[in-house]
C-alpha cells in the first residue's frame, strides 16, 4: 500500500468515530503504556536501590574491609570472609561456557541462515525453542546423572567440576547465542552477499570474509548476552560444580560461584546477621556485573557497521 492510500485509510477510520471517544481512547492507551513503562523503570530502580542498601551494609554497618571482601578466599560467614573464590568461580564458568557455546551457537546460526535455509530453520528453530524452555533444574539433573559420572570415569577427578559446569551452562546459553546470532546474520543486506558472489567468491569465502566480519559486533553481542545469562545461572550450576570454597587448580577441580553460595547459605542465615549481609553483598556483585554486561553490549553494538 502506498503512503497516500495508507493515510487515507487511517483518516477514514478516525473520521468514522466521534472525536470525544477517540480522545478517551487516546488517553486510556497513553495511561496503559506509560504505566507499564513506569512499572519497569520503578522495579529496576527499586531492585538496584534495595540491593545496594542491603549489599553495602556489609561495609558500612559491619565495617568489613571491602578490599578484604573482594580478595580474600576464606569464607565462613564471619566478618573475615572474602568472596574472591566465588567471583573467580563465576567468571571461570562464564568464560568457559562462552568458549564452549560460542562456536557451536554461531556455527548453527550460520547453518540455519546460510547453508540450509529451509529445513535448517524448520528443524533448528524448534530445537532451540525447546532448549530455551527446559527448566534449569532439569539441566542440573542431567548434569549430575550423566555428565558428572562421565567426567569422573573418563577424565578423572570427582566429576563435580568446573568442566561439568562449563558443559551444563554452555548448553543452557547455546539457544541465546544461536538465536541472536541468527538474527544478526539475517539482518545483513543481501547486496553485500551478492557483491561477494559476484566477485567470484565461494560460499565459504563469503561466509568467512564477508558475513562474519559484517555481523561481528552483533555476534559479540550474542556472546555477551549468553555470558550474562551464564553469570546469573544458579540452580543447575550449584548441582554440578561441587561448591568447594577455594580456588580450583584445574578444570576438573570443584569450585563455587556467587550464585551457588547464595542459594546454599541463605536459608541458614538469620536476617541482619553478618553472614546474611555478606550474601547480599554477593548479590550486589551479581547486579553490578549484569550492569557491566549491559554496558559491554551497548558499546559493542554501537560499533555495528551495518
Amino acid at each position, binding site marked *: 500500500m502506498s503512503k497516500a492510500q495508507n493515510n487515507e485509510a487511517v483518516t477514514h477510520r478516525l473520521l468514522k468515530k466521534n472525536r470525544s471517544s477517540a480522545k478517551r481512547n487516546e488517553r486510556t492507551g497513553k495511561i496503559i503504556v506509560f504505566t507499564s513503562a513506569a512499572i519497569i523503570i520503578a522495579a529496576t530502580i527499586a531492585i538496584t536501590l534495595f540491593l545496594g542498601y542491603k549489599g553495602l551494609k556489609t561495609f558500612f554497618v559491619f565495617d568489613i574491609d571491602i578490599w578484604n571482601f573482594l580478595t580474600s578466599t576464606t569464607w565462613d560467614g564471619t566478618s573475615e570472609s572474602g568472596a574472591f573464590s566465588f567471583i573467580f568461580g563465576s567468571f571461570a564458568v562464564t568464560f568457559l561456557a562462552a568458549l564452549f557455546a560460542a562456536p557451536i551457537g554461531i556455527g548453527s546460526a550460520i547453518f540455519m541462515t546460510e547453508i540450509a535455509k529451509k529445513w535448517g530453520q524448520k528443524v533448528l528453530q524448534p530445537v532451540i525453542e525447546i532448549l530455551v524452555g527446559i527448566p534449569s533444574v532439569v539441566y542440573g539433573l542431567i548434569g549430575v546423572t550423566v555428565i558428572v*559420572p562421565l567426567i569422573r570415569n573418563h577424565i578423572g577427578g570427582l566429576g563435580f567440576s568446573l568442566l561439568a559446569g562449563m558443559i551444563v551452562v554452555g548448553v543452557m546459553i547455546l539457544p541465546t547465542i544461536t538465536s541472536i546470532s541468527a538474527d544478526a546474520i539475517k539482518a545483513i543486506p543481501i547486496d553485500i552477499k551478492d557483491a561477494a558472489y559476484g566477485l567470484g567468491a565461494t560460499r565459504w569465502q563469503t561466509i568467512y570474509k564477508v558475513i562474519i566480519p559484517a555481523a561481528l559486533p552483533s555476534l559479540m553481542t550474542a556472546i555477551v548476552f549468553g555470558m550474562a545469562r551464564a553469570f546469573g545461572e544458579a540452580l543447575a550450576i550449584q548441582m554440578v560444580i561441587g561448591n568447594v570454597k577455594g580456588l580450583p587448580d584445574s578444570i576438573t577441580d570443584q569450585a563455587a560461584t556467587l550464585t551457588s553460595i547464595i542459594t546454599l547459605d541463605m536459608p541458614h542465615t538469620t536476617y541482619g546477621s553478618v*553472614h546474611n549481609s555478606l550474601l547480599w553483598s554477593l548479590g550486589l556483585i551479581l547486579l553490578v556485573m549484569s550492569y557491566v554486561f549491559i554496558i559491554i553490549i551497548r558499546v559493542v553494538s554501537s560499533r555495528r557497521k551495518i
Partner: protein
Amino acid sequence: MKTFKVFGLLFTLVLMIGVLAACGGSGENNEQAGGDSGESSGSIIVGGSSAMQPLIGAAAEQFMSENPEVQIEVQGGGSGTGLSEVASGNFDIGNADYFAESKDDIPADELVDHKVAVVGMTAAVHPEAGVDNLSKEDLKKVFTGEVKNWSEVGGNDQEITLVNRPDGSGTRATFNEFGLDGKTPAEGITEDSSNRVKQIVADTPGAIGYLAFSYFDDEGTVTPLSIDGVEPSDENVQTGEFPIWAYQHSYTKGEPEGLTKEFLDYMMSEDIQNNLVPAQGYIPATEMKVERDAEGNETDK
C-alpha cells in the same frame, strides 16, 4: 484531560512507591502480621527448617483433619528464616534445628523453645571405603583433612572425599560440635539437601558426608559409621551413648497462646510422639533419657 493526566501521574507514583515499599520494607513493617495468634480466626503460620517441614506438615495435616475449623500453614525457608520470622512476629511458630542462642542476632530470651523431636545423625561413607566404625579421633582426622586416604584409618586404599553442608546449616553445626568436638572440617563438596548428600556419597568412591539416621536404609548405598564402637541407633541416642544428635526446635515468641499452644501441645502428645515422629525418622523428644542445653552440656533427665 487534565484530570486524567493528574490521575495517571498519581497512579504511577503510587505504584512506584508501592514497589519501593514492598522491597524496602522487610525490616520495618513486620510487626502487623503477627500478634494475633489466631484463636479467633483459627489460623497460624509455622515455618523455618526445611528438614522439619515434613514432620510439622504431617502433624499439621492430622491436626487439621481432627479440627476442620483450623488452618495451619507450614512453610519452609530454612532455620535462619524460621528464627528471624518468629522473632519479628511473622510466624507464630519458627522451626529450627539448632538452638536460637547459637545465633547472635536472634533475641533468644524473647523466644520460648519447644523441643518437638530429636534427630540422630552420623557419618555416611561410600561402601568401598571399607570402614563402618571409626574412633572419634579418626573421624576428626578424616574431616579436618589430616588423613587423606581410607587405608590410614583401617579402610581400603581409596582417597577420601569430604561432603559438607553449608555454613550455618544446623546439620553441619551439630556434626561439627558433637562429632568433631568443635573442629572445623576441611573444604569439600558442599551440598544442602540430605538426598543429594546421600546421592553424592553413594556415587563417589571414597566419599564421606553426614546424614540423619532416617536416610540410611537396607539397600546399603551408603554405610552408616559407628563411632567408638557405638552403633548409630535410636536407643543409643536416647541413652546418650551416641553423641551426634540434635533437638528439633519449635520456637514461639513468648509463651504460646490459643491455637499455637493447642498445636504445640498436640505435637507433644503421645499419639504424635510415639507414632508420627518415629514414622518420619525422628526420635520422640519425650523418650530421651538425657537432656542438653544450648551450651551443649548433657545431663541425665
